[in-house]
């Protein structure tokens, strides 16, 4: 069932790109690990958005299926990430990612 007058694929791609880049920017500029995780989610979400838009464009379900997988991944990843963040906070009593620089050189 085609939907009329929907915004173009290009618009979707643009939006996803903008969101992705915002996520990337957030990832690079925030020192708080929680914020970084949020930024990662923004990036992942941007990719997910692309899938759905492209799926709609081509009219097949693959896009949404991939969306579901991406969401699954995001959930599992966040679970592990948060567990690590907790351990990090317990040991270092900070959420500053810059404190995590013992390994270098």
């Amino acid at each position, binding site marked *: 069932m085609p939907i009329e007058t929907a915004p173009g*694929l290009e618009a979707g*791609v643009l939006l*996803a790109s903008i969101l*992705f880049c915002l*996520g*990337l920017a957030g*990832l690079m500029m925030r020192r708080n*690990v929680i914020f*970084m995780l949020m930024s*990662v989610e923004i*990036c*992942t979400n*941007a*990719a*997910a958005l*692309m*899938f759905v*838009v*492209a*799926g709609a*464009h*081509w009219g*097949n379900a*693959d*896009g949404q*299926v*991939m969306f579901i*997988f*991406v969401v699954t*991944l995001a959930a*599992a*990843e966040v679970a*592990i*990430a948060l567990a*690590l*963040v907790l*351990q*990090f906070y317990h*040991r270092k009593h900070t959420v500053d*990612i810059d404190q*995590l*620089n*013992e*390994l*270098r*050189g």
Partner: protein
Amino acid sequence: MSAQELLAILPLLIISAGIVILLLQVSFWRGHRGALATTILTLLLAIISCFWVTGNLLGDVSSIQVTALLLVDHTSLFFCLLLFLTAVAISIMGFNYLRLRCDPRGVSASYPEEFYILLLLAMLGASTLIFANHFATFFLGLELISLALYPMLGFAVTGEISPKSEQLQSLESAIKYLILSALSTALGLFGIALIYSASGSLDFNAIASRMTELSQSSTLFATGITLLLISVAFKLSLVPFHIWTPDVYQGAPTPTTALIATVGKGAVIGFLLRFFNTLDLFGSEVLIDMLAIAAIASMLVGNLLALMQANIKRLLAYSSISHIGYLIVAFLIGKSTFGTEAVIYYLVAYIVTTLGGFAVVGLVADANEENMLSGKHPQEFLIDAKNPYHREFYRGLLWRSPWLASCFAAMLLSLAGIPLTIGFIGKFYVFTAGVEGQMWILLGGVVVGSALGLFYYLRLLLIMVQRNETAETNSNGTLVIATSGQFLIATLTGALLLFGIFPQILINWINAL
């Protein structure tokens, strides 16, 4: 999905079943040895099933398509076999590592058994990735490896038995890898989405059928491929996406390091071979140029970084960067069977050697740890010579533990590509491939890189044969390595020498499978 299709993915099924069984086993009866046994059994069964599936691939049936998602063929089965064998080795390394650091009774809340579950999960991901013929399975396989790796990298965090510094480093490596890998995944996903936008399909075959149209019509597709390539390059730690490698390798428990360095890369290479072959991307000059630049940069930067490195795990990490660079040279000649053969041979060489290297490093550290736990030596990490991951710890090792040191020397020589070792034959393949492709600049890069590489391999090698100048350093004493570890190292060294001196055996296998 027919029975034939199901049987074709028997290795996957066996691994999955193994995971479930192990999960149940652990929930009812925790036991380190038991978990190890189940793991190894699962892996062995999977290996046997690989052979069995190969046996089915006779005559005109050279590959079996399992739904649209997976494709089983000779090359991928060989990769599977290789990685499963690697997993067996890693589980042995893991056993020795966990034996000392996890409390079997769980008093300090560190159970070793999860390691094996995660290992099998990673193997499932790896084999999925290898069989992948569809972006969904590619993505799931890749992420399965990553998700299993995060906790494995941070495995030492829980429990208080492992040394404090190890715990923190493990945590750090896990967080670093997680954040960077998540970004790379997102980028890769974005790339896949772009490819999907351009082609309307996630199936490699379907995309391949539209290739000519796609590559001419839009840059959307090319952008997607590039982003995907970046993501893959990250996993392969090609320069400039290599930067996580040393930190993660250093901080992680050594078996995990071995896993990430071998399985993590081997599976991706396997995927890349299939992906490039199916989509016939070797014709795309831009991609080839990108890979070539990344390869040269990897060889040079990897070796330059390793030059003055004193921490052996970091050193191996840097060297693995450069080795993947060499491998890409063989990869670039692409389509021909020779290219594939060269890539596989080099990969085998790389895996055997890297595994051996990390096995020695890990087992030496374990032996040292055991000495410390039994109170033979006080815990002093401040002195380099007391840090089991530091170069100085290996000073005069040949005189203290001749066999161990000889094996390690063989590994180092193999890494440096010296004859009598498998690394030499691998390098020979790279050179032959480079000559065949007439990629002189890349070959120049290989030569320069190898020359740089010699410096640090040799320095480590020569430190092992140095006489002890002072009695102080002598106190490290003899290192006694667990029997399973000895067996592992001996096997790897044996393979390294066997395939180095009689490469035809391995070549026959590669071509037969």
